[in-house]
């Protein structure tokens, strides 16, 4: 919206009088003035101008945010609206006769000023109505806030804004349809926008309460916050450019690195030397000083959680996962931890720091140990050897969160099956490595966690194909079992193994074995055996026609029944097969994950069983709701199960004979 230089007032007057000079208008004007009288006519005219003003503001500025809006509006009122108004008043005064342009009086300065104020307040109302959209599209809409700010002077206006915004939030954001990322994103934008609107943070503290409350109820909030903090802030520009909702709140990472810590510090009202001190706004809540800290994005997002511990714990879990990945460097993680340390202090993040140090130290240790134990190989001539290389990350168990598959702190025999047995050649190397470590650190012992890590595999097939990928240890173990020791693999039959065999050999649950096999099926390395049930065969030769791959999924369909397929058909069916195989692998992996989760839940239940037993032993018989309530109180981190689940659980305990039911009460047997 470019600001036009004001044209000659005379020219505009000419134009208007010209427009009014048609016969029909002249006639009706005269008629109206004659019938209604001057006073009534002016009243009606005032109503019309009022409406025109609102309509114009809504039409011209809705959804348009830039610095020129205000200038444009001033121009419009000064040079368009006021001229029209003065012409009309003149016409009415003269009994409906359109005057010559020269006779129209110039409106007084005060008059124009009044029109301007009216127009600004219309704009203000529009912007307040749009405030939610302004926040949603934050950054591009920054000028919208400037339209609101100048009129935000009375307590009434402030209250109107905060109430209006809170209601909009309630109806448009805080419902099950909004994803947690979205809500967090808007919360962050709200903080930024309101910081511009009201630097003291009073308004923000009034609108943010509900959002914070709602975010606390969402389970995935903390995960998203931590993931966001650890995200790569450089992706933020891309994300903005592509204008799509990503699942990661990289804004948080950006905030963390760019925030000036001192800006968040509240002005201390006890500082007698502060000559810029001003009292809190009249609508401030009594503990305003406290809520002012919510102006800081990171601080307010982190303070969503009732304690630092919850946050640090989640941070550890995410950090552990990231550190265990095979990465070149961990600079980003280090910098995030350093930034968080400024906020939380060293003590709270001590564990995280140890984790980082572990990973960095192990790189050095790894080199030394490998050298000492003669494990060091030149990368050049390892190509033909079947000997795998191992590298280890040495973690201080006490400082890491419990990792999947690591020995649980509480004994449970059923955990045994989780441990997967790596191939012998790995075991051998491991022993050497262990010796190396124990030579180096006399007092410490190395315990291997076979379920974690990555394995780089390189497979070569009879038809000369090679395949290279990074997979999980158990998947590598499965594919290793298909390894053909014979050099002349071309002569022998491709190896076929059943899932149950593999399961006993590797001490892995069958679901995991099957999921690994399906993964390799999707990569066209294995195929389900055609004659043995639940077995897989190495696909040494790629089938000549891609269409045969359909057999890989659906044994009942025989590819030979479609001899007339065109090439395109075959290609598409191969693609479909690929998709289906991927999906099958995914499903199997999901099932495996679900099983692991169920197992973890069972392990947790064993602890809850102790709680229940101790409770019933010491407090005598109790009804179910009471047990649920007590568990909620004493179990660290809260008791995550519903009353129904607890009832089932207690029924299990009754079956096992530890507990008996007496009426509605449970009692120790």
């Amino acid at each position, binding site marked *: 919206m470019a600001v036009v230089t004001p044209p000659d007032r005379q020219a505009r007057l000419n134009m208007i009088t010209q427009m009014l000079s048609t016969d029909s208008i002249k006639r009706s004007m005269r008629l109206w003035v004659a019938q209604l009288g001057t006073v009534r006519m002016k009243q009606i005219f005032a109503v019309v101008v009022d409406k025109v003003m609102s309509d114009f503001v809504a039409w011209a500025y809705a959804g348009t945010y830039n610095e020129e809006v205000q200038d444009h509006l001033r121009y419009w009122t000064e040079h368009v609206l006021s001229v029209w108004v003065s012409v009309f008043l003149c016409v009415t005064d003269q009994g409906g006769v359109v005057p010559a342009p020269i006779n129209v009086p110039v409106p007084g300065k005060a008059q124009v000023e009044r029109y301007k104020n009216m127009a600004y307040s219309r704009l203000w109302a529009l912007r307040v109505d749009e405030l939610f959209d302004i926040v949603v599209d934050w950054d591009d809409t920054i000028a919208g806030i400037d339209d609101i700010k100048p009129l935000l002077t009375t307590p009434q206006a402030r209250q109107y804004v905060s109430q209006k915004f809170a209601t909009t939030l309630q109806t448009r954001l805080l419902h099950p349809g909004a994803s947690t990322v979205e809500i967090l994103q808007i919360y962050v934008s709200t903080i930024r926008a309101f910081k511009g609107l009201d630097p003291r943070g009073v308004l923000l503290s009034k609108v943010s309460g509900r959002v914070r409350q709602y975010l606390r109820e969402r389970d995935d909030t903390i995960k998203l916050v931590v993931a966001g903090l650890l995200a790569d802030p450089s992706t933020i520009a891309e994300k903005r450019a592509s204008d799509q909702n990503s699942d990661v709140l990289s804004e948080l990472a950006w905030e963390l690195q760019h925030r000036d810590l001192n800006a968040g510090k509240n002005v201390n009202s006890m500082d007698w030397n502060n000559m810029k001190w001003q009292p809190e706004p009249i609508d401030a809540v009594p503990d305003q000083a406290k809520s002012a800290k919510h102006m800081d994005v990171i601080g307010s997002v982190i303070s969503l959680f009732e304690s630092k511990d919850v946050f640090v714990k989640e941070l550890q879990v995410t950090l552990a996962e990231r550190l265990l990945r095979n990465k070149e460097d961990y600079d980003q993680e280090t910098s995030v931890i350093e930034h968080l340390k400024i906020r939380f202090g060293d003590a709270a993040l001590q564990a995280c720091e140890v984790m980082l140090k572990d990973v960095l130290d192990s790189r050095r240790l790894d080199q030394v140990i490998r050298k000492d134990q003669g494990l060091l190989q030149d990368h050049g001539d390892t190509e033909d050897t079947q000997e795998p290389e191992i590298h280890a990350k040495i973690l201080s168990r006490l400082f890491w969160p419990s990792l999947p598959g690591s020995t649980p702190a509480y004994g449970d025999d059923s955990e045994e099956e989780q441990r997967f047995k790596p191939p012998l050649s790995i075991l051998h190397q491991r022993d050497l490595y262990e010796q190396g470590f124990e030579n180096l650190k006399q007092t410490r012992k190395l315990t291997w966690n076979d379920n974690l890590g990555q394995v780089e595999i390189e497979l070569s097939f009879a038809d000369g194909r090679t395949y290279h990928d990074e997979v999980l240890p158990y998947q590598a173990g499965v594919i290793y079992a298909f390894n053909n020791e014979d050099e002349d693999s071309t002569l022998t039959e491709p190896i076929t193994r059943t899932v149950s065999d593999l399961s006993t050999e590797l001490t892995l649950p069958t679901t995991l074995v099957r999921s690994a096999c399906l993964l390799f099926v999707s990569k066209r390395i294995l195929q389900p055996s055609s004659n043995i049930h639940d077995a897989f065969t190495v696909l040494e030769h790629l089938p000549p026609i891609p269409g045969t791959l359909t057999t890989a999924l659906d044994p009942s369909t025989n590819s030979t029944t479609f001899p007339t397929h065109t090439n395109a058909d075959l290609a598409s069916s191969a693609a479909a097969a690929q998709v289906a195989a991927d999906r099958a692998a995914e499903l199997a992996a999901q099932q495996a994950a679900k099983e692991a989760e169920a197992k973890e839940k069972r392990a947790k239940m064993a602890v809850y069983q*102790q709680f229940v037993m101790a409770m019933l032993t010491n407090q005598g018989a109790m009804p179910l709701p009471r047990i649920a309530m007590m568990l909620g109180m*004493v179990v660290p981190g809260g008791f995550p199960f519903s009353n129904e689940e607890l009832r089932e659980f207690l029924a299990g305990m009754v079956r096992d004979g530890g507990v008996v039911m007496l009426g509605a009460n449970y009692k120790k047997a």
Partner: protein
Amino acid sequence: MDFENSAPNQPTMAEQAKLNGSASVANTQSVTKRLQSELMALMMSPTPGISAFPDADGNMLHWIATIVGPNDTPYADLNLKLDFQFPADYPYSPPTVLFKTPIYHPNIDFSGRICLDILKDKWVASYSVQTVLLSLQSLLGEPNNASPLNNEAAILHEKDFEEYKRKVLARHVDLDD
């Protein structure tokens, strides 16, 4: 006196008076935290014959514990209930432990008070509910007759063990029923 028994950085009297309001809140929190972890430890490594749990109104500073009498003692298979009251500066001072179940024992009086050195001047901050319960369990089998609270029991324990046994069983009441 051991160092472990005094809280670190004990503030001076004046400071204490000033800080009292907020300090006591922080204190209760740390006590609750400590008790929570003790409870978790008890749940993670259950010891046969002893058990403890916060009381019914969810007050962490008040626990109820149960000891099952050790096998080769007159108390074999008896359920003995105890009451633990933790002070605000726990673990720097010992909990107050009382037997709820009426018990006949040389070192325990008729209102359940216990004469045990680790609950008095020998208390160390590294003791826990579990160690107290284990000590009490062994005290049942091996009373300290040299400093009795119940003189008659101490004499009977040494002179007429059968009578002692009879009195133990006669005095016992199972609180659950």
